């Protein structure tokens, strides 16, 4: 089978949520000398197609989770092969739940979906204090920071994270995107964030848009 056919098979396996086929074709691609970054490119376009199916209501949260699991498993197979070569990420995102917010199902889905879309992601976890976000920006030098909140109470603490970025003079170094059930564009604007994602796929698109602007 030709390389492009193997990659096509790999891509279709992710979109069709076929774990075994995705892993088999990853191995097959590697055995045929396909470069890991080419496989990652195919994963990105698969991730894009999964997103389109979510937008057209063919896929739901359950399918995003499964696609994420498959892409993560395929990435694990690729890792040993890219150790000498620096992976070509599209950008770096740090992400965490707002101070006081202990929910992480949505955030975790964003993490795996961003990874599938070719981003390097640093997950700071739940109930992340403002100073931890600030420190992570300094240590990790990301392009984007994601803050998640599920309740109308905890969303009110997103502002303190953005204020902390401002007082550390690093707000301008990154884009800030918010996500979570009660959040709105108006709220994002009010607290000084750059955007509010209405769902996982919308959030990824916004991040991709920022990176293509900056490149």
């Amino acid at each position: 089978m030709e390389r492009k056919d193997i990659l096509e098979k790999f891509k279709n396996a992710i979109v069709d949520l076929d774990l075994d086929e995705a892993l088999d074709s990853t191995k097959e691609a590697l055995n045929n000398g396909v470069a890991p970054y080419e496989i990652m490119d195919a994963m990105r376009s698969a991730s894009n197609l999964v997103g389109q199916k979510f937008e057209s209501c063919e896929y739901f949260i359950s399918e995003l989770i499964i696609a994420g699991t498959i892409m993560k498993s395929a990435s694990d197979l690729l890792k040993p092969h890219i150790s000498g070569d620096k992976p070509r990420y599209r950008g770096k995102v740090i992400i965490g739940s707002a101070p006081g917010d202990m929910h992480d199902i949505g955030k975790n889905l964003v993490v795996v979906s961003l990874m599938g879309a070719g981003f390097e992601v640093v997950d700071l976890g739940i109930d992340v204090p403002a100073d931890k976000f600030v420190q992570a920006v300094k240590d990790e030098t990301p392009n984007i920071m994601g803050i998640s909140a599920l309740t109308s109470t905890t969303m009110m603490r997103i502002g303190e994270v953005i204020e902390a970025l401002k007082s550390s003079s690093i707000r301008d170094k990154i884009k800030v995107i918010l996500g979570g059930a009660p959040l709105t564009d108006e709220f994002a604007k009010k607290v000084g964030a750059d955007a509010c994602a209405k769902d996982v796929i919308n959030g990824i698109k916004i991040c991709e848009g920022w990176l293509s602007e900056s490149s």
Partner: protein
Amino acid sequence: MESVSRGQKATIYPGERYTPRERVWKTLEHQEADRVPAELGGCLSFMMKQSYFNLKHYLHLPIFFKEIDYWPGGTHYTSFWTTPIDERIYRRFRIDFRPISIRFPRPFIPQKLFSDNSFIDECGFHRKAGETYLEFANPYPLERMENIDEIINDPYWPDPEKDRSVEGLDKKAKRIDEGGYALCCVAPMGGVFETSWQRRGFSKFVEDIYFRPNIANAILDKVKEVLIKMYGMMLDQIGDYCTLVGVADDMGAQTSGLVNLDIYRKFIKPRHKEIFDFIHKKTAAKIYLHSCGNVDMYINDFIEEGVDVLNPVQPECPDMGLEELKDKYGDKITFCGGVSSQRVLPRGTPADVKAEVIRVIKAAANGGGFIVAPGHIIQPEVPPWNVCALYDSVIKHGQYPIKL
């Protein structure tokens, strides 16, 4: 406020013609009663303890010792999720419903306590107190198990016959029934889907459904068995007194369903149906389903399963506008909820809340089949004057025939 005890007869106020129970039954039968029923903490619409205490202060009501728990930072924990509401508040707001549930007969002791103060609770969930609430904590108790025997024999599965008691439930139910209120029997845990993932982990459970269906089926069956046991124990005692039996199974995220419809129909719907059929054999009560988020895609299936009332109908979610829902399903299901709890209740003024109540009544109350309630848990920062504005507006503007 005058002191009242639970079970004291309901007051029929000027302009009203029915007891709360009669009003609710008319509504459930899609007829217009004397006014639109109102719900708070009587079925499965909750109030966080912080806002509840603020409300008590505001209404000059004392806080009882039994309402205070020992978690730091005002985090609340009750083995029965909803805060027990003071009978005087129920009456002040003219709440038509009263809850009843199986009892946990001894002081709450975690089944297992970890060094980070997280613990396995009485339902077998791993929980940890945060600043405002208890959240499910990682790792989920069954997350790392790989074989069915290990999962099914996990020692932390709830065992209602061993851990719970229905002693005295019949007397309590009779008192509430004779008081003229609509009694809602609820289980102190969620339905088959949410309990399964709350024990297994959300992603892991969805992966089970796709890649290890035998494990998904075993977990779902175990939860179903626990729920059937729990409802059976309760309804054998109080089935004759119930107007509603409440089941909580969240199927929606904010913008869409959590699982696709094929999965829902294969894994969840048959178990819902089995539980609801079992409940129907024990009582003439209607089935009240609490299912958060955008659940529009499941509503036809809910109706086929035998769901009579859907709560909380979150207006901020796409597809969950009351007017559209009423048009599509209004003759087959009653809606309970609809008042914006993500935006208007926490951030609006009392005038905004009043406008919101008028909006939901206009959208859904004509012809019955609608109960006013918050579109989700009343959050800690909701000011008490907004809670009062909500229920005062139902009293003022909810009179049939609706003239808004």
